[in-house]
Each structure stands twice: as C-alpha cells, then as structure tokens.
C-alpha cells in the first residue's frame, strides 16, 4: 500500500489553533474542466454522481426544458442547467452548464461556517463537508455565491458535491468525469486544465466565430477548482445564473474572526463586573440594618 495517497488539509472551518499536518506534503491543485460548448446534455454525469455517492432517488420536475430539476438538492449534487437562449439575430442557442460545487480557492461556505471541522479545504483545492461536525445552521448556504450547499430536513445537516474526494484521494478521477461520453468534462491539475481551457477558447474565438468565448475562473474568490469554457464569457448569467463577480459577504470575515470573540468577551465582563462589585462595593441591604460590630 505504499502508493496510497491521503488528502492534506489546508483549511478547517472555525478551527482554533494550527491545522494538523499543514504543509507537510506538497500537492498539485486539482481542477475539473467543463467545456459547455461540447456538452450534449445527456445527464450521464448526473446519474454517475447519484450512483457513486449512493444517493436516494430525488424527484424530478418537468418544466418543458431538458433540465432535471430547478436546482441541485441535498441528494442531487450535479445538475445540467439548461437555457434556451435567443440571440440578438433571432437564432436560438441551447446553453447547457454542469452545475455543482465550484470548490472555490476562497470558499464562502468555509468562511461562514461556525462549526469547528464541519468544512475542510484540502491542499489540492477540494472543499469538503464533514457532516458529523455540521450543526445545520445553514450559514454556508448564505456564504456560497453559487447556491450549492443544500439542507436536509431529516438529518438537519448540509450536503454538497465533494469533487469525489474519496476517489481523488485514491488517484481516481471524479465519477462525473468518468461517465462523460463527449470529453466535455476533463480532470487534472489546475495548471493543465487552465491551459486546455484557454486553448479551447482560442479555438472557439478564431475558428468557430464565438468572439466572446472564454474561461470562467472568477478571481474575486481566488479562482475555482471547477472551471468552464463558455461561448460567451462576458455573460455567464445566461448559463443558469452563473454569477459574473461572485462575492462573499464581508460580515463573515469581520464579524466571525474579529468581532465575535471580542464582543463575546465584553459580554462576559458583565459577569466579572458583578462579581467584583459584590466583593468590593458590596450588596445593598434593606434598611435599617442592625448596628455593625465595633472592631
């Protein structure tokens, strides 16, 4: 078992103190490349995801499109978002984007999470939820710019795509990648995927007439470990509401790391204050008190 690989932890949510094993081993950053221009909407990745992660059946919704359901669910982490886009010249274009966790370099969910160890980021870039530490507060839901974490009403915990960390940790590609028949999904190091994505965009711009083709790897959150090639990178919103400039609410940084402990301590000073008051100033007793003993 000398070739067994383990995932190195880079960040732990709400964790006081150092990260165990941090920086012990260097790791390549992994990346999933989704080329929306070659996706045929076959949903093999959706099925592979449900299969590999052993998810129960999730009811589907038919809304006159090729989309399985309106959005991802706690038990359905991988969804092809479908949009029938009418271009300026009146022609129609089918835009299909594989929606799943983006595995942000600066994850909003992890920033927002108050529970120690409920969310971890591995040094290869995968952001993973540990349900045994999750308290179900759903702050990650509002921390995420992509509306990915989903709450399970029965277990009271939050779930999302793991980028098949269990497979990647053993040197395998994620299940969705393995299932993709067109080669629209690729998996490898961030560097390589970025290179392929840029080359493909260039090809689309120069040979296919998509003058705005480009790569979606938003730098406002430090880049993501799932990147897209889009026909029109200037309007990512067309692809099932992909945010152009994803942001994490500032309160999750300022409030959580600075104000919370400081103000919490101040409130506890109330306790200290009344204790000190009792031993110094002393209580007020109903009057009159019996005369005090002379020393």
């Amino acid at each position: 078992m000398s070739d067994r690989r383990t995932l190195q932890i880079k960040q732990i949510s709400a964790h006081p103190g150092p990260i165990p094993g941090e920086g012990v081993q260097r790791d390549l950053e992994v990346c999933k490349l989704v080329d929306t221009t070659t996706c045929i909407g076959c949903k093999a990745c959706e099925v592979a995801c449900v299969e590999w992660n052993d998810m129960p059946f999730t009811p589907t919704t038919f809304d006159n499109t090729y989309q399985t359901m309106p959005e991802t669910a706690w038990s359905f982490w991988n969804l092809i978002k479908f949009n029938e886009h009418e271009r300026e010249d009146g022609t129609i274009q089918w835009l299909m984007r594989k929606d799943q966790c983006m595995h942000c370099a600066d994850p909003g969910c992890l920033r927002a999470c108050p529970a120690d160890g409920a969310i971890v980021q591995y040094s290869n870039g995968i952001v993973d939820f540990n349900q045994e530490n999750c308290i179900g507060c759903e702050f990650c839901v509002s921390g995420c710019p992509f509306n990915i974490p989903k709450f399970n009403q029965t277990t009271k915990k939050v779930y999302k795509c793991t980028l098949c960390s269990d497979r990647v940790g053993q040197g395998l590609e994620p299940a969705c990648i393995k299932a993709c028949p067109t080669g629209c999904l690729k998996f490898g190091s961030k560097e390589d995927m970025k290179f392929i994505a840029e080359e493909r965009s260039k090809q689309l711009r120069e040979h296919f007439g998509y003058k705005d083709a480009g790569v979606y790897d938003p730098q406002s959150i430090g880049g993501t470990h799932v990147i897209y090639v889009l026909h029109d990178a200037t309007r990512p919103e067309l692809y099932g509401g992909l945010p152009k400039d994803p942001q994490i609410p500032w309160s999750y940084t300022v409030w959580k790391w600075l104000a919370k402990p400081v103000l919490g301590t101040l409130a506890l000073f109330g306790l200290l204050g009344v204790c000190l008051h009792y031993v110094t100033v002393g209580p007020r007793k109903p009057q009159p008190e019996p005369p005090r003993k002379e020393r």
Partner: protein
Amino acid sequence: MATAVDRFDDKGRGLFDRIGTNDVYQGELLRHRPYTRVLHWMVALFFFLALFSGFGIYLPWLFRWFTPIFGGGALARSMHPWFGVAFCFFFGLQVLNWLEAMRWTKVDSEWIRGLRNQVLKPEKLEPPETGFFNGGQKVQFWEILIGSVVFLVTGIILWVGAPTFGPTLGRIIVAISYVLHDISALIMLFGIFIHLYLSTFGEPGTFHSMTRGSVSEAWAWTFHPAWYKQVTSRDPRQAHEEARRQMETGPR
C-alpha cells in the same frame, strides 16, 4: 376605556390569581402577583434554553460543551428557533402586563443620571421618588423589548434561510441578520448578569418577590420608596426612621 387587549390581559391575571396564592406575612407587601411570576419564569426558562442552545451556534469551538444538553449541535440548532419563539411569546404577554408600570418618566431620567454613583458609592436608601420599577429596571425592560423584536425579525429570516429571499438578496439579508441577531444576544447576555446579581446577591430580599410574591416593608421603603408610599400611604423615610429607632432601643 378597556381595549380587547387589556381585557385579555385581565383575564390572565384573574385566572392565575384564582389558582395561585401569595405568601404575604405581617410586615410584608405583595409585589408580584402569580400571573406576573409565572410569565417571568416562563420567559426566564426559554431565555436560558435559547441562550444555551445559541452558544453552541455562536462559537462552537468555545461553547460546544453546551450542545450535548440538547442532543448535539444539529438538534440544538433546530430547537433554538422554537425556544426563541416561546421566549418572545411569553415576553410579549409580560409586556402587556407591565406596559403601564414601565412607562418612562422624568424620575427615571434622573435615576439614570445618578447611575454612576448608584453603582460605585450607593446611597443606603433609594431616592424617595423611585416607584414600582426604577430607571434601571425600565431600561432593561425596553432593551429586552427592542432586542426581542430584533431577535424575532432576524431570527425568522435565519430560520427560513437565504434561498427564500432569492439567490443574491437572500445572502445579503442573512449575512446582516446574523450579525444583528448576535449583537442583540450579546447585549441581553450582558444585561442578564446584572439582572441576576441585583435580584439575588446584590439586593437581598428581592428574589422572594418572584417566587412567593412578597417583599418586606423594609425592602420596599429602601428600594422603591414611592411604591411603598403608594401601597401603604405611609411616608417611607419616616417609616425607616421609626424602624431604625426601634432597632436601637432593642426589642420590646
């Protein structure tokens, strides 16, 4: 002119007065009727349940030892809103019950101005104008009322979750709500220490008014002289003076 709300409130008082009894002996005064006491302890119960379950959500790495009381972090989190709703419900009834007594007056502003002295070098006797509740108690009451409204509004937002309000707006609303929710809790936490202290060790004799309803007359003329005057028609300072003289001459 009694409104429907007043009549509802009266009904509650009447019902608990029929069931409950007060221990008021010679030399004592009735301060809190059974209805008030029941409401107070229901508010207190759900306040502490919400507080302790909230600790585990606020800073789990520091307060996770609270959560086993509720069966773990996730269960604490899912019960916390219900505790909060119950807290707001009972406090709402208490507001109706106390609204008249908590009305802010000039005397209270005066009382607050003397707060610094009151804390560091307290007079033995309260100023003679201090009524049923003093300025500090009224401040706490109004703080809890405003705080509860903040709790309720932001709490419901946090409860239903960000996606209810749309993908972008929801995230912003939740991010703001949770900061306001926490700040409201911190102010109330600070206040509760003072409340607990003054009602027990800080001013002995107070606690009994919330358990069996009564306080001693000495307690009344010391801490709430105007109220003493109102219920006994005696002058609080004179009553104190008489008691003092009697104590000096010794028991008859």
